[in-house]
């Protein structure tokens, strides 16, 4: 498996502001993913972040709202921009260790509350 950390673990933000979430992995990985879990909902993929290329966003998510950086093989950031209360969610990063089994390993998540 992999050890994945996220910062911050939680935050309370004012509407209209932005928050950048960091994800650090203890090994080099090609594919990293960002998910959102809204209250009482399932996990929804926001985007796939590969090092050296632009992130690929899922339907309903756009780069202006959720810009992603992937500067190297162990680190990624997700920014939630111009926040509204509807952005209150748990944001999780995950990695695929490329073992061919499709398992992804998740970080502990960032609980975001927007007032």
């Amino acid at each position, binding site marked *: 498996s992999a050890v*994945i950390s996220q910062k911050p673990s939680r935050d309370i933000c004012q509407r209209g502001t932005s928050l950048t979430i960091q994800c650090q992995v203890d090994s080099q990985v090609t594919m990293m993913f960002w998910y959102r879990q809204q209250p009482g909902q*399932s996990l929804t993929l926001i985007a796939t972040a590969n090092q050296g290329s632009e992130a690929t966003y899922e339907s309903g998510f756009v780069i202006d709202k959720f810009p992603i950086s992937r500067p190297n093989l162990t680190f990624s950031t997700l920014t939630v921009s111009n926040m509204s209360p509807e952005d209150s969610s748990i944001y999780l990063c995950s990695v695929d260790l490329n073992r061919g089994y499709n*398992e992804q390993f998740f970080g502990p998540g960032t609980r975001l509350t927007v007032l």
Partner: protein
Amino acid sequence: DQQVKQNSPSLSVQEGRISILNCDYTNSMFDYFLWYKKYPAEGPTFLISISSIKDKNEDGRFTVFLNKSAKHLSLHIVPSQPGDSAVYFCASTSGGAQKLVFGQGTRLTINP
């Protein structure tokens, strides 16, 4: 369009008995299925998976069954232990796409 559904939001089982969690999917292209366990304030932890070429996979107390014709999978936990109390998510993917589609989760409570 909910492609993966867990119709039971919660399940309560007595310690030592069998826990059965169910999951249905609609996308015939899904060919790999996974179960994750999630404790509060933690990320999901991978539990067990199954490929569509199999109908059963077993790992210790955990067994996953896949019924492709019914587009249904289930997770059996025997015997259930208090530490199994968590939210369980099923997830599916297709064609090695790496994109996981999750169900809504089932909260399992094991009672002593």
